[in-house]
């Protein structure tokens, strides 16, 4: 009898279906990724006149992206690694890369959902609307920003093997990003910190997103923010993949 390797498309489809189902049933992660940005969008309605719709939009989206990278991706990877779910999948006749590609596809789906949610709520509640080019560019740059935080999440699970430590670290990083990002950019912690935050992973994504929403005023600062975002994403992903172990036991 001849041995046949199963069709990769069928294997990948099955894996993606399971990963999407797992994500959907993991309500806490979905809520954190979608609800918090939408709450910010609604509660900051009063600031739109002062800072502009793009500012509130971009803050809200950036926080959602941080949440997807940290709470959605990193925590689930750490947990599944700890439970041996990856090892179970690695002993099947399927390319190992499928395991992570499927996970990333799920998170890209979450980014699309988040961006759509922010657009809809922003329009319905805050009466913020963009030009068609603004919507498209924001969508594209949201994926770029998402890549940065997924890379950041990958770096955390690459650096830290213990699932509980990953859990607490990502929560701390998430809170730090929210507090420093939201209030630091407003100048609440002084000018120096404001500059640091502006060029931090939070600041570059926020700047890039805010500029993407208004393509007509896209400037040099926005281009540099985009380049920095891509560079951050590449460095974080490279380190995260390099350091990553499939098993928390070390193999």
């Amino acid at each position: 009898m001849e041995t046949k390797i199963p069709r990769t498309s069928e294997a990948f489809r099955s894996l993606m279906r399971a990963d999407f189902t797992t994500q959907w049933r993991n309500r806490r992660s979905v809520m954190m990724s979608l609800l918090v940005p939408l709450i910010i969008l609604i509660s900051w309605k009063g600031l739109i006149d002062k800072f502009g719709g793009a500012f509130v939009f971009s803050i809200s989206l950036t926080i959602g992206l941080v949440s997807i990278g940290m709470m959605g991706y990193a925590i689930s990877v750490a947990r599944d690694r700890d439970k041996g779910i990856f090892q179970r999948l690695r002993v099947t006749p399927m390319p190992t890369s499928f395991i992570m590609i499927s996970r990333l596809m799920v998170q890209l789906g979450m980014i699309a959902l988040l961006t759509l949610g922010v657009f809809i709520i922003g329009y319905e509640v805050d009466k913020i609307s963009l030009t068609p080019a603004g919507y498209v560019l924001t969508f594209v740059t949201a994926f770029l920003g998402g890549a940065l935080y997924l890379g950041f999440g990958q770096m955390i699970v690459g650096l830290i093997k213990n699932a509980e430590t990953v859990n607490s670290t990502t929560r701390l990083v998430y809170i730090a990003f929210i507090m420093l990002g939201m209030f630091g950019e407003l100048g609440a912690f002084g000018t120096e910190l404001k500059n640091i935050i502006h060029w931090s992973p939070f600041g570059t994504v926020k700047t890039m997103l805010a500029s993407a929403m208004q393509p007509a005023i896209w400037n040099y600062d926005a281009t540099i923010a985009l380049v920095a975002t891509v560079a951050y994403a590449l460095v974080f992903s490279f380190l995260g993949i390099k350091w990553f172990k499939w098993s928390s036991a070390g193999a």
Partner: protein
Amino acid sequence: MIDQPGASILQVENLNVFYGTFQAVSNVTFNVKSGEIFGLLGPNGAGKTSTLSAVEGLLSPESGEISVAGFNISKQPLLAKANMGVQLQATSFQPELTITEIIKLYAGIYGVDLSVDRLNSILQNIKLEEAASKRFGQLSGGQQQRVSLVISTIHDPVLVLLDEPTSGLDPQSRRQLWERIEAIREKGHGVLLTTHSMEEAEAVCDRIAIIDHGKVIATNTPQALIDLHKNDPDVINASRKGKITLEDVFIGLTGKTVRA
């Protein structure tokens, strides 16, 4: 694929596994034939799981050759993996998925056409029809092991690898699992299992290898090992009930010191 009964379906030759400078497996050689249950026994940290992980392709050995149904695990990993079914030590499935979803997932990965009738027959066979929509995390240990075992054989592999399959099970569930493992053998598949239970090794294994400090120190049928070592002073010294058992041989060969 190997079709002849009694043909070697797993060949491990001169396997060496290192973790940094620590050698976990040293020149391990053995084979598993079709229609045979082969047990890998050893104290904690003896190198059983490392050997099994190398066979499964989960770690790269420093040197040595492993072939499954004639396919080299390093050079033709997907073909080798298509011929093996694996039950890992941990019950490693997404707890959010139901049993049906998990079975469908692995059927899809292994390219198995799973009709509704086939799915129902699988669930019936493992006595979990009523629990089909339950999530994996809600099952008892015995039920989880049954799901795990059925998934390891869903694609009808020539070789089934079981890492401590009955660990943590009550006697009834253990006996039931032994019958399922024996049924796999009856179909002509080869089974490689690791276990700490000498009772299990004696009850189900056709041949066993005792591994200690990364080396295979004895390979034979359980009865032949007892006959061969029953007069060893260390084995007699280890005996508690007068009659020499496989456990006495095991203790006699590997020592009384408790391993970490």
